[in-house]
Structures are given as C-alpha cells and as structure tokens.
C-alpha cells in the first residue's frame, strides 16, 4: 500500500468496524420489536443496543467514512499529497479515543440516552467527552480539507476546483456550521450537568441546539454520497456526467439551506413559537430542490451511459447499465430507495401533517431510507470501489459483493415500508414492547412488525456479506498493482471558476440565513423564565 493511502485506509476501517458492531445491535432490535423472546432480552438491553446502534452507525461509521473519502478526494481528485498529514493523523487518533470513550460508556450501561441524547436523560460524562473528541477530530479533518483546497487553488489559478472537491468542501462547510450547535449543547449544557457542576439543564434549549446540528447532520451524511453519485458513478456506468454546473449548484444550495431547518424536527415541541416552525417548514421544503436536481442529473448521466452503449428507446438504456458491478448496484439501488425517502421527508416537513407521523415508526422507516440506505449503501458501494484500490488487492468474495446491495435493497424495503405503515397506524418509535402487553390497538400492526423483523434479518445478512468481503479483501485479496481512481468527465467542458465557486460568498449567505432562522427564537427563549430539569436515568 502506498504510504499516503494509509490515512484514508485507517479511517475506512474504523468506519467498517463501527458498522459491523452497529449491524449486530440492529438485528437484536428488529427481533425484539417483533416481540420474539430472545436470550437476555430486556428493556434495558433494548435501549442500550438502540443507543449503541445509533451512535456507532449515525455518528461513527458515517463520520470516519466521510473523513476517509475526503482524504481520497485530496489524493486522487486534486492529485496532491495530503498537506497537514500530521494534523490529519492527530484528528484520527483523537476521534478513535472519543469513540472508545463513548462506546465504553454506552456498552457499560452508563449512557442509555439514544443517539439524540435528549436531556433530561443523562449519560456518564465519558459519553459526552467521547462525542466531543470525535467532533474535535472531525474539525481537524475539516481544517486539513480547507488547507488542501487553498493549496490547490494557489497552484491552479484560474481553474475551477474539481467537482469532487467542490462537493467535499461543501460538506466541510455544512459540518462546521452545524457542529457549532452540538458543541455549545454538549460543552455548555450537558457536560457540566453530567459532571454535577450544574444541578439542572434546560431541555428545550438543548433540543433546539441539537436539531440546529441534527438536520444538517443529514446533509453531512448525504453530500459525500452525492459526490460519489456525481463524480464516480457516471464513469463506472461507462458514460459522462450530464452537467458539472448543476452539481456545483446543488452543493451551493446545500451550504445555504442545510442548517436553518431544524425546527421541523420540533414541530410538536413546546417552547418554540409556531411562526418560527412555519419558517423552518418553508426552508425545509426548499431543500427538496437540490435533491430533485441531483435525481435528474445523476439519472441523466446514466441515460448518457446507456445511449453511448447503443440504447435508443425511452428506457432501454437502463438495461445497458452495469447492474452486476457492486459499486454501481449499491449506488443505483440507494437512489431508488432515497426517492421513497424523499416523499416521506416531505410529509415529515409539512407542519400540520407532522403530527400524524411524529415519533411514530414512520420516522425510523424514513431515516433508514435516507441515512440507512442513500448514505450507508452508497458508502458500502464506495468501500467496494476504494478498499481494493487503496489496499492494492483484488476484491475478494465477488459473488457476495454482487448480491449484497440487492439484499440490502430487499431488506430495507421490507423493514422500512412496514415501519411507514405501522407509523401511520399509530405505532410509536423507540418503544421496546411493540405489542403493548397484548393491547387490542397493537394487534393491528403485529403482522407488520414481523415483516419488519424479516427485513432486519435480510439486512443483517447483507451487512455480514459486506463485512466478509471487506475482511476477505483486506486480509486475503490477491495483491495487484495500484489502480487509479477514475473520475467522471462532464458532458460539456468545465469553464473558469464562477459564482458557484465563490465559497466565501455562500458561507456568508448561509450564516445570515442561520441568524434569521435561529437568533430571535433563541434570544426570546433565553429571555423567558426557564425551568431546568434534574437528570433522569431510567436504568
């Protein structure tokens, strides 16, 4: 392995191992929700595993994978060694220490607070400290990404930065703006409270700060997936990117619109005025547009590929795409399920209708289509694409790799659709006993929870296949010469840097929008008489 590739490779493996641990937890939860009597099944174990699953999957797997992909983009799209490699390694080890601290607290049963860690649920200080370190590590990554972008700009005056770096820089900006919220929440509110330095905590303020972070977190997951969709997928499909400019527009729109939308997660929360919730609703609906543009541009790129291979009919180009390639299949299938997730997201974001689905199983059905498939399945596909190249080895267990994305697609369809339906029937999320001790109302959704459990089993099989392929490739793959990472060429040449490349301007617009959306409601909240809550630890 090239020495410089060790940096992304190490990050990838932390991500893959976190994914494996989280997948094992998920199987237990899916079976438990179907009320199957398992050894050691208990409410305490259920909520512990939900916390571990959420933290490891949504915060550790994603963050480390995205950091890895950022370094890959520096190495192979900017074609330069990572400037600031020492800082990058420091960020890696700080993050790893953070993961160990947080995971230890969770697995010891001292931090059963779910991945949203809403107070007054209180965790051991090690949990909050661990999460803080993961974020500090990611800030070092962000600094390294920006430094490398600036170095590239100095060396390539008058050239537009490659689209892959444009998208990753948008990811960095979204992350830096978003993590301000969670940093304030953890450092000012939760950590001192957990350490006993303050007696009570303000749950409303903590939730506002969490969702200031929590929704752009979704785009932190999705934007690197979009980078892969725009810049790698068309190449693997054998075509060209339909429009480089539309890609740049999409990434800029996410910089602007990702953050001032958090109140749509708090549509039923007291303490946030309805007018501000409505403003966030409008801004949330706007953010559907960049995803719709992405659906058009990436699908059009696939059509270009199919037509370059001779397709002439309305849809026969679909048959000419490389559905047997694990990377292509993973990404294409993740896009199909994301389309369903987009529809569900529009329901979540509609202020009044949110009451129908709020805190129901619909929500877990929804985010397993977005982060659990659009991001996670894309990352698995990317791992098939990147790990052999970085390790200098052939992809092993190729048949498992080919089948795995389809299994994930099938399992997620069963799991997610059944959860959407039971959510509309009123089944709550995050409830250990889905049958409510045999209550009549719960009988209606019993068959669907079984379907969801079957989906969980299929997903677990898919996750196991992924891990086997990764381990097989890393440990037993045939050595081969390093293979370059090839990026998609745009259909039309990229011009000089334009308005969409002026990141400073878009950061300014984003900050102004954030201030409009959050400054007044937070200021009003701080001026009101507030009532703190003492800690609550159910187990």
């Amino acid at each position, binding site marked *: 392995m090239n020495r410089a590739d060790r940096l992304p490779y190490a990050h990838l493996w932390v991500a893959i191992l976190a994914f494996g641990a989280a997948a094992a937890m998920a199987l237990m939860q899916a079976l438990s929700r179907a009320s199957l009597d398992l050894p050691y099944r208990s409410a305490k174990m259920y909520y512990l595993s939900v916390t571990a699953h959420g933290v490891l999957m949504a915060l550790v797997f994603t963050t480390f994978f995205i950091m890895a992909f950022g370094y890959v983009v520096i190495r192979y799209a900017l074609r330069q060694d990572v400037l600031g490699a020492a800082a990058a390694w420091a960020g890696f080890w700080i993050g790893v220490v953070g993961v160990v601290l947080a995971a230890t607290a969770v697995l010891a049963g001292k931090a059963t607070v779910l991945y949203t860690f809403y107070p007054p649920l209180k965790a051991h200080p090690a949990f909050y400290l661990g999460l803080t370190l993961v974020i500090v590590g990611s800030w070092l990554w962000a600094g390294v990404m920006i430094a490398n972008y600036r170095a590239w700009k100095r060396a390539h005056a008058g050239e537009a930065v490659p689209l892959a770096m444009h998208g990753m820089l948008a990811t960095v900006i979204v992350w830096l703006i978003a993590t301000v919220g969670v940093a304030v929440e953890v450092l000012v509110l939760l950590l001192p409270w957990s350490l006993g330095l303050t007696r009570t905590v303000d749950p409303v303020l903590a939730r506002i700060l969490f969702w200031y972070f929590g929704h752009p977190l979704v785009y932190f997951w999705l934007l690197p997936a979009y980078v892969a969709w725009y810049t790698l997928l068309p190449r693997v499909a054998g075509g060209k990117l339909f429009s480089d400019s539309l890609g740049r527009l999409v990434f800029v729109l996410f910089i602007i619109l990702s953050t001032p939308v958090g109140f749509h997660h708090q549509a039923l929360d007291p303490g946030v005025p309805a007018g501000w919730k409505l403003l966030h609703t409008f801004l949330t609906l706007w953010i559907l547009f960049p995803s719709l543009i992405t659906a058009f541009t990436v699908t059009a790129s696939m059509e270009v590929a199919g037509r370059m291979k001779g397709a002439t009919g309305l849809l026969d180009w679909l048959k000419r795409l490389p559905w047997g390639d694990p990377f292509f299949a993973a990404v294409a299938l993740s896009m199909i399920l994301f389309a369903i997730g987009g529809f569900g997201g*529009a329901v979540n974001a509609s202020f009044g*209708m949110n009451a*129908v689905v709020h805190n129901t199983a619909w929500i877990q059905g929804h985010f397993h289509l977005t982060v659990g498939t659009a991001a996670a399945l894309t990352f698995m596909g990317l791992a098939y694409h990147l790990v052999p190249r970085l390790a200098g080895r052939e992809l092993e267990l190729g048949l498992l790799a080919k089948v795995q994305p389809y299994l994930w697609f099938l399992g997620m369809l069963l799991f997610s659709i059944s959860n959407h339906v039971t959510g509309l029937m009123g089944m709550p999320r995050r409830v250990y006993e889905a049958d409510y001790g045999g209550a009549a109302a719960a009988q209606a959704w019993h068959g669907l929870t079984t379907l969801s459990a079957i989906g969980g089993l299929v997903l677990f099989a898919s996750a196991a296949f992924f891990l086997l392929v990764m381990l097989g490739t890393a440990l037993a793959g045939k050595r081969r010469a390093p293979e370059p990472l090839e990026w998609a060429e745009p259909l039309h040449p990229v011009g000089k840097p334009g308005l969409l490349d002026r990141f400073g301007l878009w950061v300014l617009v984003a900050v102004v929008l954030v201030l409009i959306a959050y400054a007044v409601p937070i200021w009003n909240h701080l001026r009101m008489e507030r009532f703190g809550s003492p800690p609550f630890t159910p187990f």
Partner: protein
Amino acid sequence: MTHGSAPPDGHPRGTLFLIGLYGVLFVIGWFAVYILVYLRRGGVTA
C-alpha cells in the same frame, strides 16, 4: 471503462419521463396522506 460511442445530443427523454413519473407519484402520495390520514383524523386546524 470503454465507451461504445459518442455521447448523445438532445434531451435525456428517458430521464425526463422517470423524473416526471416520480413527481406525479410524489404529489399523489403526499395528497393521499393529507386526505386519507391527516384530514380524516380531523387535522390540527379542524
């Protein structure tokens, strides 16, 4: 990755068809939840 021929000119009509179809299903789905679930339960403004 080898390319079979030159990239096509013209609009991506298959994509426009699929995106249009998705748009129609999206709107139908949203209104289905709005009318059949939300309004049927009374809505928050009823």
